C-alpha cells in the first residue's frame, strides 16, 4: 500500500468512527424522546418548579448624622435536604457522625449526638428534603453552620439550605416611631417607610424553587435567576438629640395635663428641614406612645394660632395699622345670631390692634376682619390671600398620609358662606389645618416671608455613600411684603412680651409666637367643652433658627389654655435647644469666628483688661463680666462677654489651660489634659448639664 492509500484508509476509518458516534448520539436523543419520553414529559408537566420572588434587603432609615432609625436585621433559618441530588451516600455516611455531634451541640441540647444521628438517618430514609435544623440564626452563627461537616459542601452536595429572612428594627424605640412608620401586610403603609417604600424596598430577585411536596418548595441550588438589589438608605433630616428632647417634653406635658394626644414639630426655619417630630397618644396599657401621626395626618380647627394668617391678610391689603385703636367691647360681641367671647377674660374695651392680637382677643381680630372682608368680594379677597400664603394646599411633606387643609372656597358655588363665616374664620374656626401646615406659615414669617417646603429626607445613600441629595426648596418666594412680615414678627414678639405668652418669657433667650385655645366640640350643645391647646412660634426672635408648633388635644387637668398647656412644652424645647445647639449659643458663635481667620483671646476679664492696657489699645466694646472674649478687628479690638452659665459645661475652646481648668473645676468636673497651648477641643459639648463628669481637653 502506498503512502497516499494508507493515509486515505486511515482517514476513512476515522470518518466511519465519526459516523458511528453520530448515530449513537442521535440514537440516545431518540431514546430519551421515544423510550423514556413519557416519563420525562410527565416530570416536566407536573408544575414542580416555579420562580419565586426573593425580597431584597430593605434600606435603612437614618437620622441626619447617620444613626439608624429603622434597619432590617437579617436572620436565617437552616434546613437540611437529606436527599439532595448531589449528595452521595458515601459522603453522608462518612460525615454523619461528626455532623450529628455538631448539630446536637449547637441546636437541640436535649438530643445526644447518637440520638441526633439516629434521627437524621431515620429522616433520610423517610425521604426528608426540608428538615428544620434551626430557626432565628444570626449571621455569625450561620458562618459556623457553613463550616460543619457535610454542610460545607453547600446545598447540592451537602443538603445545606439557608433561608434568609429579615426583621425591621427601630433602635430608638418610640422616638419618631410613627413618622418613621411601617409597611406591613394587611395594613395601610405609613410614615417615611410608606412614602419611600419604592426606594427602600429595592428590586426583588427571582429564585427557582423546586416543589418537594404539596406545599413546600426548596430553592434549587445556585440557580438564582436575578439577584435582588438592596434598597437605598433614606437619610432623614431628623436630629436624634432634638427628637429626644421633643419626645420627652411632649410626653411630660401630656402626662401633666392628662391629655388625649398631642404632637410637636420642630423645623429649621431657613431650610424647612424637619429636625424633630413627635406624636403621642394615650394608650391604656402603655401610657403615651406613638400611635398616629397627628402632626401630619390630623387636620383640625386651629383656633387663635390662625389669627396670624388673618392679620397678615389685613396688613397685606393695607386695611389696618396695628397701632390703630379698636373697641373690643370687653371681650364679647354678637355677630348675627352667634355671640363671640374672648377666651381669656380681660375686661378691656379700647385697645390697639397690636394689643388685641397679643392678648388674643377673638372679638378684636374677628371684628376687623368682618369689617373689611364683607360679602362675596371680601370673602374672595381673603381666600386669595390665604391661597397666596400656601394655606389652601398640602405642604407635600414626604410622609404618607398628609391630610388636606380645608378652607372654604368662595369661588366654588357649592360652598356656603354664612354671615358668621368670616369672623369665625378670622380666629381659626370653620376651617381646618394640620399642625405642619400651620407651622410652615410661622416658619415663613420667621424666614422673612420666604416659605420653604417642609421636608424630612435629605438624601438617599447606598453603603454609606450618598447617591442622591435633596436640597431645600422654596415653596413660595414671598408670602407677603417686607413691611407686612416685619409687623407680623413684631406682633408675635408682643405676644411673648406683654400678651398671652408673657408667663414663659426667658431672660436667656428670646422667642416669638402665638397661643391657641380651640374648642373642639362646640357643636355639641350642653356637653362639657373639649379643647385643643396649641402654641406656634419660633426662636430666637431676632434671628429665627427654629420654628416649633405644640398641639395638645383634650387636656383634662391643670388648665386647657394654649398658654398654660402648650406654651410650657414649647418653652422647655426651646430651652434645651439653646443648651444643645451650637448655632444658638452666643459664646460658640464667637468660636465659629475663629474659622474666619479672626484672632481672638478668651480669658478672665481681669487678664484681658491688663493686656489691653499694656498694649495701650482702647477696645470698641466693653463688658464687666467675669470672663471675656477679646476679638481682633482690622484696626481695633472688641471685648465681649463670654457667657458662663451655672450647672452647664462652659465653652472653654480658645482659652488658656489655667482659665479652662478653673472654670471646669468650679463646676465640679474632673479635667484631663493632653498637648500644649490653648484648648483646641473639649470632650463634652458646651451647654451639657454638669454632674461631675470627667472632661478631656486637647490643647494645641
Amino acid at each position: 500500500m502506498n503512502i497516499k492509500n494508507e493515509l486515505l484508509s486511515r482517514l476513512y476509518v476515522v470518518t466511519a468512527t465519526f459516523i458511528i458516534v453520530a448515530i449513537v448520539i442521535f440514537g440516545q436523543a431518540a431514546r430519551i424522546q421515544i423510550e423514556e419520553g413519557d416519563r420525562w414529559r410527565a416530570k416536566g408537566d407536573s408544575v414542580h418548579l416555579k420562580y419565586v420572588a426573593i425580597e431584597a434587603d430593605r434600606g435603612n432609615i437614618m437620622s441626619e448624622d447617620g444613626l439608624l432609625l429603622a434597619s432590617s436585621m437579617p436572620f436565617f433559618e437552616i434546613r437540611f435536604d437529606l436527599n439532595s441530588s448531589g449528595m452521595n451516600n458515601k459522603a453522608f455516611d462518612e460525615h454523619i457522625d461528626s455532623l450529628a455531634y455538631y448539630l446536637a451541640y449547637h441546636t437541640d441540647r436535649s438530643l445526644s449526638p447518637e440520638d441526633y444521628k439516629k434521627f437524621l438517618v431515620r429522616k433520610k430514609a423517610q425521604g426528608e428534603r426540608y428538615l428544620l435544623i434551626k430557626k432565628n440564626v444570626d449571621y455569625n452563627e450561620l458562618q459556623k453552620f457553613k463550616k460543619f461537616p457535610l454542610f460545607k459542601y453547600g446545598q447540592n452536595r451537602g443538603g445545606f439550605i439557608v433561608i434568609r429572612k429579615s426583621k425591621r428594627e427601630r433602635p430608638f424605640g418610640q422616638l419618631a416611631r410613627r413618622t418613621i412608620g411601617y409597611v406591613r401586610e394587611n395594613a395601610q403603609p405609613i410614615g417615611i417607610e410608606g412614602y419611600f417604600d419604592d426606594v427602600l424596598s429595592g428590586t426583588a430577585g427571582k429564585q427557582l424553587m423546586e416543589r418537594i411536596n404539596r406545599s413546600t418548595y426548596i430553592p434549587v441550588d445556585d440557580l438564582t435567576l436575578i439577584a435582588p438589589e438592596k434598597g437605598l438608605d433614606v437619610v432623614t433630616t431628623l436630629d436624634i438629640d432634638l427628637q429626644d428632647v421633643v419626645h420627652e417634653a411632649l410626653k411630660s406635658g401630656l402626662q401633666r395635663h392628662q391629655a388625649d394626644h398631642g404632637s410637636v414639630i420642630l423645623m429649621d426655619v431657613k431650610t424647612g428641614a424637619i429636625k424633630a417630630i413627635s406624636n403621642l397618644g394615650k394608650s391604656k396599657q402603655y401610657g403615651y406612645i406613638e400611635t398616629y401621626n397627628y402632626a401630619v395626618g390630623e387636620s383640625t380647627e386651629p383656633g387663635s394660632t390662625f389669627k396670624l394668617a388673618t392679620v397678615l391678610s389685613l396688613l397685606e391689603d393695607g386695611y389696618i395699622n396695628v397701632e390703630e385703636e379698636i373697641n373690643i367691647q370687653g371681650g364679647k360681641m354678637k355677630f348675627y345670631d352667634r355671640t363671640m367671647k374672648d377666651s381669656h377674660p380681660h375686661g378691656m374695651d379700647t385697645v390697639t390692634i397690636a394689643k388685641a392680637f397679643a392678648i388674643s382677643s377673638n372679638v378684636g381680630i374677628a371684628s376687623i376682619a368682618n369689617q373689611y372682608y364683607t360679602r362675596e368680594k371680601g370673602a374672595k379677597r381673603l381666600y386669595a390671600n390665604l391661597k397666596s400664603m400656601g394655606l389652601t394646599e398640602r405642604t407635600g411633606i414626604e410622609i404618607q398620609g398628609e391630610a388636606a387643609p380645608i378652607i372654604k372656597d368662595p369661588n366654588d358655588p357649592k360652598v356656603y358662606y354664612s354671615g358668621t363665616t368670616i369672623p369665625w374664620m378670622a380666629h381659626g374656626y370653620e376651617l381646618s389645618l394640620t399642625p405642619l401646615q400651620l407651622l410652615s406659615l410661622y416658619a415663613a414669617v420667621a424666614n422673612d416671608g420666604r416659605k420653604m417646603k417642609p421636608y424630612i429626607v435629605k438624601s438617599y445613600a447606598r453603603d454609606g455613600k450618598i447617591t442622591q441629595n435633596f436640597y431645600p426648596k422654596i415653596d413660595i418666594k414671598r408670602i407677603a411684603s417686607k413691611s407686612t412680615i416685619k409687623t407680623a414678627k413684631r406682633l408675635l414678639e408682643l405676644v411673648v412680651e406683654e400678651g398671652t405668652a408673657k408667663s414663659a418669657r426667658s431672660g436667656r433667650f428670646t422667642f416669638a409666637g402665638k397661643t391657641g385655645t380651640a374648642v373642639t366640640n362646640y357643636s355639641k350643645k350642653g356637653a362639657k367643652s373639649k379643647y385643643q391647646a396649641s402654641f406656634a412660634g419660633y426662636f430666637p426672635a431676632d434671628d429665627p433658627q427654629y420654628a416649633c408648633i405644640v398641639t395638645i388635644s383634650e387636656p383634662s387637668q391643670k388648665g386647657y389654655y394654649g398658654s398654660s398647656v402648650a406654651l410650657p412644652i414649647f418653652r422647655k424645647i426651646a430651652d434645651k435647644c439653646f443648651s444643645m445647639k451650637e448655632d444658638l449659643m452666643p459664646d460658640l458663635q464667637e468660636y465659629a469666628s475663629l474659622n474666619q481667620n479672626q484672632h481672638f483671646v478668651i480669658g478672665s476679664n481681669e487678664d484681658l483688661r491688663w493686656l489691653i492696657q499694656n498694649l495701650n489699645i482702647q477696645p470698641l466694646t466693653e463688658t464687666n463680666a467675669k470672663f471675656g472674649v477679646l476679638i481682633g478687628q482690622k484696626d481695633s479690638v472688641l471685648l465681649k462677654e463670654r457667657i458662663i452659665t451655672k450647672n452647664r459645661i462652659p465653652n472653654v475652646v480658645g482659652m488658656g489651660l489655667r482659665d479652662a481648668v478653673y472654670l471646669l473645676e468650679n463646676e465640679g468636673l474632673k479635667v484631663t489634659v493632653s498637648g500644649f497651648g490653648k484648648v483646641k477641643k473639649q470632650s463634652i459639648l458646651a451647654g451639657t448639664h454638669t454632674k461631675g463628669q470627667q472632661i478631656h481637653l486637647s490643647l494645641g
Partner: protein
Amino acid sequence: MTNTATSIFNVKGDKVIWAIFVILAMFSLLAVYSATGSIAWKERGGDTEYFLIKQALLIGGGFVVAYLFHWMHYLKFSKAAPVLVVLAPLLLLFTLAYGVNINDARRWLEIPFTGMTFQTSDFAKIALVVYIARVISSKQDIIKDFNQAFLPIIVPIVIVCGCIAPADLSTAILLFTVCFLMMFIGRVDWKFLALLVMCGLVAFAFLIVIDMVFPNSNFVRVDTWTQRIQDFMFNSEGGYQIQQAKIAIADGGLIGQGPGHSIQRNYLPSPYSDFIYAIICEEYGLVGGLAVIGLYVTFFLRVVKMVTRSPKAFGSMLAIGLGMIIVIQAFLNIAVAVHLLPVTGLTLPLVSMGGTSLLFTCMSIGMILSVSRYVDKPRTANG
C-alpha cells in the same frame, strides 16, 4: 464559475461547506434568541434583543473573518506555524498566571484597550493543529522515526495540552484527541501512539498529584472534575441540568414545539451554550436534532472528499485537523446534552452563543475553505 450570487462577493471554495456554515449560523441565531430570554432578564433588565444583536454581529464578524482567511493562501499558515506554536504555550502560561478569572477558571485574556477577552486555548488549538499538520506532512517519508519525526510532533502537543489542562481539561482532552487522530491518519507508528496515550495518562495523574500537594489552590480544578464525573457515574437520572435537558428533548417530539416555544429554557442553566442542543431538540424536534448532527457529519465528509486527491499534503492534514476539532467538539457537546458524557462545558461550535471563540471557529472554517479553494484547482496554482 457562473453563480452570480457568489461572484458578487467573489466567494470561492467548497460551496457545500459555505452552505453548512450559513445554515448553522441560522440555527444559532434562532436558538440563541430563544434561549437567552432568562439571561436577558438577569443581566440586561429584559432587553431580549441585546443577545440576538450581539450574536448577529458576532456571526457577521465571523463571516468576515472566514472570508478573509479563505482568501489567504493556506501555505502562509504553514510558514507561520513554528512561531505560532512557540507563542501558544507562552500565552497560555501568561493566562494561567494573570488571566481574567471567570467562573473559577483562568482561561481568558483581555485584549489591551478593547475590553474584550478571548480564550487563549482557542488560539492554541489552531496554532497546534497548523504545526502538527506541517510536521506530519513534511516528514511523511521518515514518519516512523522516533527522534526525527515523533519527538518534534509530540513535544509541542504535550506542552500545549499540558498548559491548557489545569484551567480547561475538556479542551485539553479535545485537542489531544484531535492531535492523536491526526498522527494516526498521518501514519505515526502504533507503538508511539500507545506511548502517547501513556503520556496523556501520566500528565493527567501529575495534575491530580499537584492538586493533592496543594489542596487549597484553585490552580487545578480537580474538585470540579471529580464532582462532574461522580455526578455522571453515580446518578443514572442525571443531575438537575441533565434532567431538565432530557425533559426538553422529550418535549420536542418529532417536529418540535416550534421556534421560540421552548419551556425548558427557563429551567435549564446556560440553555444558550452548554445545553443549546436540548433547546434545538425541544423547538425543532428530532428532525432538527438530526439535521444539526447531519450538518456536522456532512461538513466532515466534505473535508474528507476535498483531501482525497493528495491526503498527505500540508493543506489536507490542516483541513482534517481543523475539521476534526469542530466535529469532535460538536459531538462532545451533544453527548453531554443527551447524557452520554459528564458535563464538559464545551460549546456547540458555531451554534452556541459565543464571544470571541466563535470568531476562532470561523477562522478555522476560513482556513479549511482556503484549502478547498486550492485543491479544486490544478496543481499549478500551488505556489
